[in-house]
C-alpha cells in the first residue's frame, strides 16, 4: 500500500523537482537551506496528497506548499520592512539607460543582454526583496501565469502584477549597476547614476 502511494507520488513530483530546487535556492540563498526547504515541502505534500484533486494543477499545488513552508520558516526575515526607493521605477528602465549610452551602438542592446553573466542574473534576482523575488521567479523563471501565481502566493491578481512590475524594474536597476561595475558602460555620465 505504502509502496504504491510512494510510486505515484514520485511520478507526480519528479518533473517539478528541478524547478522546486531552483526556486528554493534563489529564495534561501544557499544549497543547504534550499535542500531543507524542498525536503519539508515534499514531506508536507506527501502527507496531504489526498487533498490534491486529480487532474488539477499539481505544479501550482506543490509550489503553493513550498511558498507557505518558506514563509513559515523565514517569518522574521519576510516581515522586515522594505527600504526601497521607487523614484526611478520608470517603464523600460534598462532600455532607456542603454539608449542614452553613447558608447553602445543601437544594434548591441540585445548583445548586451546576451552577454550578461549568469551570476549577475542570479545575484540580481537574489537581491530583490523576497515578495518581489518570488513573483519574478514564478513568472519569468518558472513560467507560471498570473492566475497561477495568485493561487500560489495567495494574493489578489492586482497585487501580483504590481509586485511583478516593481520587481522587474528593480532587477533592471541592479543589472544596470552591475554593467557599470564590470566596466561594460564607459560613458562618463553613467558613473553618477
Amino acid at each position, binding site marked *: 500500500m505504502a509502496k504504491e502511494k510512494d510510486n505515484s507520488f*514520485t511520478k507526480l513530483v519528479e518533473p517539478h523537482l528541478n524547478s522546486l530546487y*531552483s526556486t528554493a535556492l534563489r529564495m534561501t540563498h544557499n544549497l543547504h537551506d534550499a535542500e531543507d526547504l524542498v525536503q519539508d515541502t515534499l514531506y508536507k505534500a506527501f502527507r496531504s496528497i489526498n487533498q490534491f484533486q486529480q487532474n488539477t494543477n499539481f505544479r501550482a499545488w506543490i509550489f503553493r506548499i513550498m511558498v507557505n513552508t518558506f514563509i513559515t520558516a523565514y517569518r522574521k526575515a519576510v516581515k522586515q520592512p522594505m527600504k526601497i526607493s521607487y523614484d526611478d521605477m520608470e517603464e*523600460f528602465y534598462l*532600455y532607456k539607460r542603454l539608449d542614452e549610452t553613447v558608447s553602445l551602438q543601437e544594434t548591441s542592446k*540585445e548583445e548586451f543582454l546576451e552577454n550578461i553573466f549568469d551570476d549577475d542574473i542570479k545575484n540580481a534576482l537574489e537581491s530583490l526583496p523576497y515578495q518581489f523575488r518570488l513573483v519574478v521567479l514564478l513568472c519569468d523563471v518558472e513560467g507560471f501565469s*498570473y492566475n497561477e501565481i495568485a493561487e500560489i502566493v495567495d494574493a489578489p491578481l492586482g497585487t501580483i*502584477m504590481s509586485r511583478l512590475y516593481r520587481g522587474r524594474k528593480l*532587477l533592471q536597476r541592479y543589472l544596470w549597476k552591475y554593467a557599470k561595475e564590470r566596466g561594460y558602460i564607459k560613458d562618463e555620465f553613467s558613473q553618477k547614476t
Partner: protein
Amino acid sequence: MSSAKKHEHYNCADIEALAQRYVDGQLNDYENRLFEEHLEYCLPCDKKIQFELKLKEIVHIKGREMIPDEKLKLKLKNLFTDLL
C-alpha cells in the same frame, strides 16, 4: 464590441501601460491584436518591447539552476528511505 471600438487603436502610452501584460502573454486576443498592430508601425515601441521580451528570456534561462537528473533522482530516493 461596440461600433466605437471597431476603429480603436493603441497609442504609445497604451503600449507602455500594457507592456508587462503583453510580455507575459496575459492580454486577451483583442488587446493583443491592437498591441501588435501598434508595434507594426511604431518602431520605438517595437524596439522597447523586443528588448523586454529578450530580457525575460535571458532571466528565464540564466536565472534557473540546473541540477543533474541523477542527483535529483537520488534525492527523491533518499527522501522515501527517510519517509517509510
